[in-house]
């Protein structure tokens, strides 16, 4: 027992330090006073944070903007379609159930490069030119399964008695859905939307196959990797990191506070 008492916490601290090293590196180098490539440390500057878009005619910001638009559109479509599937899977019995589960599971078990090449082959066969639309179609496709998985857990934990009560009080099906079911599902739907946006925003492999000449933030980094990426890319990545961290910590802390309040009752 004695050994385990300090060995495991010590290991945990070292493991976290290791996991965070590249993040700290990215953040520190966002303050690097470099001219073009961002490899060697050349002194501290706030300039990259203040003038993020002033490099390469704003190419980084253009790519970042594309990623945001693609992420938002794909998230809205994937979350809507995925939530509908999740409700149907939990609430209704039907014969094709196991084949539908398989169809939802397979995209998650398929390597991204196969998903990317498959869609690209499809667009090629049909003669669809690759642009923003093809990226959005691709991202929506791989986000749906993750939305279903996330929302399904929430639907399963929902007490059907609450909806029954709504019906007993003469609520129409749509009233019951929008006033009872939807608000109860909302935390799960929001979590699914965040996950979907994060997956879309960081996706490179599938995007690379289906983007044509359109640039996204990860694609910009991939292309710039050979000549060294500018510090401005580190600024954008660091800013996104901080925003995401704040969102998730706020959610976790409020959840922990809620659990504690419930425990006191």
């Amino acid at each position, binding site marked *: 027992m004695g050994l385990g008492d300090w060995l495991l916490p010590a290991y945990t601290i070292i493991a976290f330090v290791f996991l965070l090293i590249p993040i700290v590196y990215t953040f520190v180098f966002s303050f690097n006073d470099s001219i073009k490539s961002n490899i060697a440390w050349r002194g501290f500057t706030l300039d990259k944070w203040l003038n993020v878009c002033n490099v390469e005619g704003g190419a980084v910001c253009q790519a970042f903007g594309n990623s945001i638009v693609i992420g938002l559109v794909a998230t809205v479509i994937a979350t809507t379609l995925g939530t509908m599937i999740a409700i*149907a899977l939990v609430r*209704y019995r039907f014969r094709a159930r196991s084949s539908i589960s398989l169809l939802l599971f397979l995209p998650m*078990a398929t390597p991204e490069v*196969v998903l990317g090449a*498959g869609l690209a*082959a499809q667009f090629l066969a049909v003669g669809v030119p690759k642009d923003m639309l093809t990226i959005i179609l691709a991202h*929506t496709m791989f986000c749906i399964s993750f939305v279903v998985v996330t929302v399904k857990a929430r639907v399963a934990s929902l007490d059907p008695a609450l909806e029954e009560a709504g019906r007993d009080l003469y609520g129409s099906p749509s009233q019951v859905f929008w006033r009872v079911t939807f608000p109860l599902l909302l935390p799960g739907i929001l979590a699914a939307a965040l996950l979907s946006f994060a997956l879309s925003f960081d996706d490179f492999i599938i995007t690379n196959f289906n983007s044509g000449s359109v640039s996204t933030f990860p694609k910009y980094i991939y292309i710039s*990797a050979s000549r060294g*990426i500018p510090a401005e890319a580190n600024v954008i990545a660091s800013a996104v990191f901080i925003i995401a961290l704040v969102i998730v910590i706020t959610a976790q802390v409020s959840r922990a506070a809620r659990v*504690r309040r419930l425990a006191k009752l």
Partner: protein
Amino acid sequence: MAFAAFATAEAQPQAPKRKSRIALLLLLPGILYLVLFFLTPLISLTLTSLQVPSEFGDIGQYDYAFNWQNYVDVVQLYWPHILRSFGYALAATVLALLFSYPLAYFIGVKARRWPLLQSLMLVLVIAPFFISFLLRTLAWKQLLSDESFIITSLKALSLLAPDAHFTGTPFAVIFGLTYNFIPFMTLPLYTTLERLDLRYLEAGSDLYANPFTVFRKITIPLSMPGIVAGTLLTFIPAAGDYVNASRDFLGGPDTQMMGNVIEANFLVLLNYPAAAALSIILMAAILVLVGIYVRRSGTEDLL
């Protein structure tokens, strides 16, 4: 985690049959979407893998055919890449499991008394996801390069041979794959370990089992669903990855994996049939390996 979530699909309350029309309306758009943009592309990919070059066409022009020879050709040409993909992915999966298990055990079991600390540690596990996958990999490239202070100080301390270097070697690629997929391993492990009933462990010690035996005979079997899910979530993306092994990232000419070859054939050489044949081989191999693994590890109810 994703896989575990599917396992709970069946234990749901019964619903009246007459509502199946609503179920159909709810399912139809999403399922249609996946049929159009997931299933049909896989069929397109299979058809593409059997194509032959157009007789009078330009580079990148192919006609539909039934040319099995494409598969023979790519295996002959790229068998080292195929073996490397699975070898690197296996090594990265084992390393990620060894790294993640103690971490997930601490968060899921030892930190139970402090829910807030537990939540914050979970955030730290997924924190790498909040920064671009490619930037993280580039950061490691810089940190492992010959001029970085880590490498120079290790050499100054004689912990490393003076002529040793990392970037471009299989070690660096496996390192990068391990690092990038650790959260995929830690999260499912955490999910099962968090639900581990400690009374089983106590019962084990009461019956005079030493801590190692308790771990081997009780903890490991009870955390098997997490191990299986984590292994799949790490192995599958690692085998298909082409960022870590790229020359501009952690790889070199001798570390190219299937993903790199598929990318090069599809986007640069415009040899679509070769890229498609390799993709189908990758997918088939993964389905077979996953099938065997899941059957062996005794968790058939993943779906």
